[in-house]
């Protein structure tokens, strides 16, 4: 939570990055209360790419780099290859931090991305949808919200099974 005006970033891009950071902080808070067993536990009936909290978090970090790379490619900025990492639970905080820094650096490049570019630079993603930068960042933030929600559901499920033992 921000306690002074100076902590808020400036402008429309600032509001996007502030809300991205906030969504990620909420996700990290949920993760901090998950033990090693639940982090790896497979949920029956879920698709393979999202069937445990560990798999979800590998996906969230990877997707975060992917969103930044779409923007970097569209603006001819340096693009780092995305590693397909299996992230141990005790490294997830640092991995999220690294991915967010990569995003901030994307927007704070020299020269920084402008509001005009946020509205008018378009690209088509690998899932064949056209986005401008603003739409992609809204998608990126809601992606984090949706997976935080999914993890909260998984935890309710794990606890209900534990209570039934």
């Amino acid at each position, binding site marked *: 939570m921000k306690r002074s*005006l100076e902590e*808020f970033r400036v402008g429309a891009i600032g509001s996007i990055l502030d*809300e991205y950071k906030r969504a990620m902080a909420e996700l990290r808070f949920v993760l901090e209360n998950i033990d090693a067993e639940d982090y790896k536990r497979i949920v029956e009936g879920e698709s393979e790419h999202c069937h445990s909290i560990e798999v979800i978090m590998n996906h969230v970090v990877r997707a975060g780099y992917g969103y930044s790379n779409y923007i970097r490619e569209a603006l001819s900025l340096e693009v780092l290859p995305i590693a397909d990492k299996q992230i141990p639970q005790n490294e997830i905080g640092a991995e999220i931090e690294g991915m967010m820094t990569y995003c901030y650096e994307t927007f704070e490049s020299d020269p920084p991305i402008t509001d005009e570019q946020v509205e008018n630079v378009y690209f088509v993603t690998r*899932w064949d949808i*056209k986005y401008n930068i603003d739409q992609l960042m809204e*998608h990126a933030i*809601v992606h984090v919200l949706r997976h935080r*929600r999914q993890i909260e559901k998984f935890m309710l499920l794990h606890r209900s099974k534990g209570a039934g033992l």
Partner: protein
Amino acid sequence: MKPKDKLEDYRSGGIGALMDEYERAALELTRLLETITEDDYARILDPETEDSDCQSIQTMMNHVVHAGYGYANSIRGHFSIPHKPFGDERPQIQKSEIGDEIEKVFEYTIETLGGKWEMSYQEMNGLIVYRTEKFSENIEQLLEHAVMHILRHRRQIDKFLLKI
């Protein structure tokens, strides 16, 4: 609107997930508004702004509620569901009424999407709600924008409250 504390509270499917997060954002905004006095709600906090929707918390909330109906009506139009266009006029919502008005626009959106929680990604992607020569918005993008619209204005209120 209510917080989720058991599995049965969650909606199913991709649209259901988006509506759950819309509800969470709307609830959070409502709770923040409950902490604000009537004077602060109506106080002009940004007289310099060129955007008349962003002068005070009240004008911002008039805009948020109006926009929420606009998003739902875009979807209703696509599915040929009857709806009343809201035009450009912003009804002035009093502090005492804002919680109910947010609840109403959320319920209006739920009625709009009822039975569509499990729409596939292919269906969502193909359902273009808004298109111009350059810009296009499918139903997933529209709902993501609707969630973010609330979050961005909640952040703006957080900033306003630090100025008071």
